[in-house]
């Protein structure tokens, strides 16, 4: 049990760190949003699962379960709203150049 808790907490730290690295590395808003939303969700989810495992079967862990469900609903909606705003403003997504093509 204790090993499982450590594994989940470690996963949370790992994903949080690499998500931030992805935000720094990627070229434009849409790809950065992808990195931050995906890794952020996974890191927080693992930390919540670890805290549920620590508490065992008690009313407290039921409350944490409810928080997790709300988080699973709200977090994708937040990143969707940012993406939608950028799309409606007309920001053009970054595209990879074809290897054989000359520039301009």
């Amino acid at each position, binding site marked *: 049990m204790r090993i499982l808790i450590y594994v989940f907490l470690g996963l949370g730290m790992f994903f949080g760190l690499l998500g931030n690295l992805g935000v720094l590395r990627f070229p434009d808003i*849409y790809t950065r949003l992808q990195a931050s*939303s995906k*890794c952020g969700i*996974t890191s927080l989810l693992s930390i919540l699962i670890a805290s549920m495992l620590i508490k065992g079967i008690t009313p407290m862990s039921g409350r944490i379960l409810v928080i997790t469900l709300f988080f699973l609903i709200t977090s994708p909606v937040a990143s*969707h709203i940012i993406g939608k705003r950028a799309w409606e403003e007309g920001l053009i*997504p970054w595209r*990879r150049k074809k290897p054989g093509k000359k520039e301009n």
Partner: protein
Amino acid sequence: MINVFLKWKIVRVILTSLYLVVGWILFTGNLAPFSIFLGFTFSFSVALFTYNIFIEEREVARRALLPRAYLLLIYLGVLIFKIYLASFKMVLTIITGDINPRVVHFRTGLRSEVARVILANSITLTPGTLTLSLDQDHLIVHWLNAKTTHSHYAGKLIKGSFEFWLKKIWI
């Protein structure tokens, strides 16, 4: 013969207060009779004010109100497993930096609005896809490792098995 609108109004109020009572019991965490009585009265009075926002009138006839709960639980488990797989793929793409982003458009066959919202959320959670816009049944998706730009084929690849299961849950 009661008025049809009145009948559905009563159903909506009762369903809203039931959802609220479940929330009350989870958050107070005790089953004393006085606490439950208090929960019922307050849920009923709140439901009288808010049923119109919580359950819209045109959503009422379909099976949108009471999904099949056991299938929903299975769906949730599969979704969490897929989120973990997606994150590991994301970490690999972050390290290698090999991306080919495109924007694709496609349609969905789901009827209920709750099911559509859940489909859009699941697409945002799975590997390398981000929902940019959801208008009726038309989805615009940003895809990090695009294999194709053909609308129908891309829809099949991205939606995967989600749409099949959601159709079973909400009909």
